[in-house]
């Protein structure tokens, strides 16, 4: 055993230990009393976040260190880890009231969220395909379970099985891709793969390998045509979990995507760029079109998250040059806003019900002016209208695409944002321009949710 530099995995370690602690607290909590799982989780995540800040202070503190060549603590990873942790904190803040409202208070929930975060953190920091795969699966398995958490609802279980079947199916493809790249380079380290890909010959192997990886990651980021699970799963899963998936998984998976395609496969770029461009185009178009016809809010947001994957992919096309920053920025804004959007829905849940149909939020501006305003900000930001984070994000994304010469893609992207404005505005119309129907049946907004949403509005 060599002396291993454990600094890069330290934050993940903290989160993992917190998860275990939550489980233990649950197990040893006195009967009839709930363990302070949420608080514990939030604390752990915050600690991990602080540790990331410490790491990021410079090379002397661990920036750029690697653990055995498998995990790296470079700026990219740290940034995304921080993002994932932030997402985690917000989700944990949103959760208690939602769980209470839907009578789902279970300590395992927080543990699984934490484990999933561990997976995400591994995913964005892995520089080696095996650890990447294990991290991916850690994230996914926890999410499969979380999606199916609501035992009283058939939708939840259906979401779980759909997610699970398609997820496992896509994972197999991903794995085959790893196999091919391994077969090409004799190693699973991204650096070695990169040099092997760059050397001439056997390009089919590399191309197919890259394609298979793209299938797997495309599934995780919900890119067309690997997106079909998304609406069903997002709809069926508990809303906080949906929020978590839409923000966290997307961020982590895009991190992995950029790392693999930017670090391991740049030599192959001329081959995969058009393919990714096509995916991006399809994803934008179909995602937005899909969202257009939805009357269920969660489903609509699900389709919209597909569309946003499309926007993000346009920047990946421009990788490896400027894309990373653009994607990162966009991810931050998108994560905050999407969390906020789902969070707003979650915050309204009461007595096992939550607003689902678009008509459920009619006249919300008069009942919950602040919440409606917050939701409006999210929707506007998702549309990408200026002075919102979404706009700056889109600006960077399409800037990257244009910079790489993909003007057509940028045009398609912006036109699709116009389409998206239609359905986002539909919600705003309901909230502001329609009278509320029926009794006020939605719950008061919990303090935690309020805090979480305030943060995301601020972003």
């Amino acid at each position, binding site marked *: 055993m060599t002396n291993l530099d454990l600094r890069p995995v330290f934050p993940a370690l903290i989160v993992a230990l917190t998860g275990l602690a939550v489980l233990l607290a649950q197990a040893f909590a006195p009967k009839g009393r709930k363990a302070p799982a949420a608080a514990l989780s939030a604390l752990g995540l915050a600690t991990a976040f602080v540790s990331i800040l410490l790491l990021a202070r410079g090379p002397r503190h661990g920036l750029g260190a690697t653990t055995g060549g498998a995990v790296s603590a470079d700026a990219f990873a740290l940034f995304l880890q921080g993002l994932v942790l932030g997402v985690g904190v917000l989700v944990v803040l949103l959760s208690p009231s939602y769980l209470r409202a839907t009578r789902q208070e279970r300590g395992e929930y927080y543990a699984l969220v934490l484990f999933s975060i561990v997976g995400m953190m591994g995913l964005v920091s892995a520089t080696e395909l095996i650890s990447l795969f294990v991290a991916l699966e850690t994230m996914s398995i926890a999410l499969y379970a979380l999606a199916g958490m609501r035992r009283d609802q058939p939708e939840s279980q259906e979401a779980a099985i759909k997610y699970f079947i398609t997820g496992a199916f896509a994972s197999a493809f991903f794995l085959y891709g790893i196999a091919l790249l391994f077969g090409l380079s004799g190693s699973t380290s991204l650096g070695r793969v990169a040099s092997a890909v760059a050397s001439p010959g056997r390009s089919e192997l590399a191309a197919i390998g890259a394609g298979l990886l793209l299938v797997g990651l495309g599934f995780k980021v919900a890119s067309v045509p690997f997106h079909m699970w998304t609406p069903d799963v997002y709809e069926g899963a508990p809303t906080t979990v949906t929020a978590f998936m839409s923000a966290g998984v997307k961020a982590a998976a895009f991190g992995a995507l950029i790392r693999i395609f930017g670090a391991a496969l740049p030599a192959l770029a001329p081959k995969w760029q058009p393919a990714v461009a096509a995916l991006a185009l399809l994803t934008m178009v179909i995602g937005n079109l899909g969202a257009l016809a939805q009357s269920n809010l969660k489903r609509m947001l699900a389709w919209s998250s597909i569309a946003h994957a499309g926007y993000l992919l346009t920047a990946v096309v421009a990788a490896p040059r400027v894309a990373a920053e653009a994607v990162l920025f966009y991810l931050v804004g998108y994560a905050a806003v999407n969390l906020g959007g789902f969070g707003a829905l979650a915050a309204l849940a009461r007595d096992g019900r939550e607003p689902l149909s678009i008509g459920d939020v009619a006249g919300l501006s008069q009942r919950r002016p602040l919440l409606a305003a917050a939701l409006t900000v999210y929707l506007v930001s998702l549309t990408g209208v200026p002075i919102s984070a979404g706009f700056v994000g889109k600006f960077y994304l399409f800037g990257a695409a244009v910079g790489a*010469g993909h003007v057509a893609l940028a045009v398609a992207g912006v036109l699709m944002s*116009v389409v998206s404005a239609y359905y986002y505005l539909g919600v705003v119309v309901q909230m502001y321009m329609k009278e509320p129907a029926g009794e006020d049946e939605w719950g008061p907004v919990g303090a935690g949710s309020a805090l979480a949403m305030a943060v995301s509005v601020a972003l």
Partner: protein
Amino acid sequence: MSAPDHILSLLLALPVLGALVIACMRRGSERAIKVLALALTTGVFLLSLLLVREFRPIAAMQFVEHHAWIPAYGISWKLGIDGLSLWLVVLTTFLTPLGLLGSWSSIEDRVKEFNVFMLLLETGMLGVFFALDLFLFYIFWEAMLIPMYFLIGIWGHDRRIYAAIKFFLYTMAGGVLMLVAFLVLYVKAGVRSFDLERLVETNVDPAVQMWLFAAFAVAFAIKVPMWPFHTWLPDAHVEAPTAGSVILAGVLLKMGCYGFLRLAMPLFPDATVAFAPWIAALAVVGILYGALVSLVQPDMKKLVAYSSVSHLGFCMLGIAALTTTAVTGSVYQMLNHGISTGALFFMVGMLYDRRHTRLISEFGGLKRVMPWFSALFLVICLSSIAVPGFNGFVGEFLILVGSWPTQRTATILASVGVVLAAAYLLWMVQRVLYGEVTNPKNESLPDLTPREFAVILPLVALALYMGVASPAFTRGIEPSVATLLQRVRLKAAQAQVTPRAEASAPPGSVAAETRP
């Protein structure tokens, strides 16, 4: 008192601050909210008058503020005004308090939000006129949509939601194309900056210019609106509350023209020269078409809305003429249209407040019932018809005189619009004001209230003043226009000298070229 430093930023910040304060006020204190908003916007107006006082009639940008903002992308907080924007700024600050005053009693629902949105809208509009950085410009350009969207959507009339969404989508569709063009320009110009004044100095490949200009033109043409991108306008105008219509017609439409002048023309001189005949053609179609369709509208607001299409057609014709006289006239005509059409919308709104209908057929014989209203309404219509002595004539005349040498056919056709303007407005006047009072509901309509006088009289006075003392305005406008056109001609001439082989390449070549 001289203008404080950062006066432009101050002008931008004040309404936003006011909006924040109002947003924090209690729901019950409607009156205080109204007073505060009115006082604030009036203050902003007075402050903007300082700009007029300190403004020197030279071509250069004045009151410039420049701070780095996102240096990595060459984005900066750069504000400034010149002759093109000065009066549009004042128009904006002038119409906003009037708009608030005009809707003093007609907006009763959600007063707080209304005032907040109006203030935000003011900042957005001012920002567009101030911005000297493309990124900044775009931000304000789009950010303006949201308050307007809410103004139409919440306080509008029956089909408000359709109109609001149509307005938003239409404008945004144009805007995003412009955004892409910004990005392409950023890449192609090679200065890695969004600073307008730096970009203007660069030479973009003429073939690329064509595409970028087209993208800009679509965005601006939608805003103007030029035929055939105009169909959002009648809907938005009709459904918007009075203040919304006034601001929409008075200021927002001008941004399209302003965009051409501020961005499209100096950045793409070759394309400007190449596209000018097409713009002129569309402008003329707009003039005639807008007038003809206006003629047959049963709804007063719709009539005025289509008349805007016609009037803005004149502005665009002037711009396309590319002569100093015409372009100056065009800028002047923008102001005129803001005054006249703004006042028309106010007055239609006053009728609506009284009768809750805008159908021309519901009225008739008002001259006897509301003599003051009728007199002022007629005056405003005359100003809109461009009877000489009123503001509209000066603008139209300058445009026609200036367009004659470069766009002769268009000018001749446009003069038919002069006839039609009289037709549609006077026909409306006749049906609304003259004849017997046929509808008993109109028998006892009260004449203008002092508040309504306070709204209308400044506009009428301005319409007259601008009709007889135009140099007070045009002297500031002219140097900027002259410099702009000189630049356009100079650069276009340079391009003439260099081989035009690639400039005449088919449009498809750009897409091929942008790929690495």
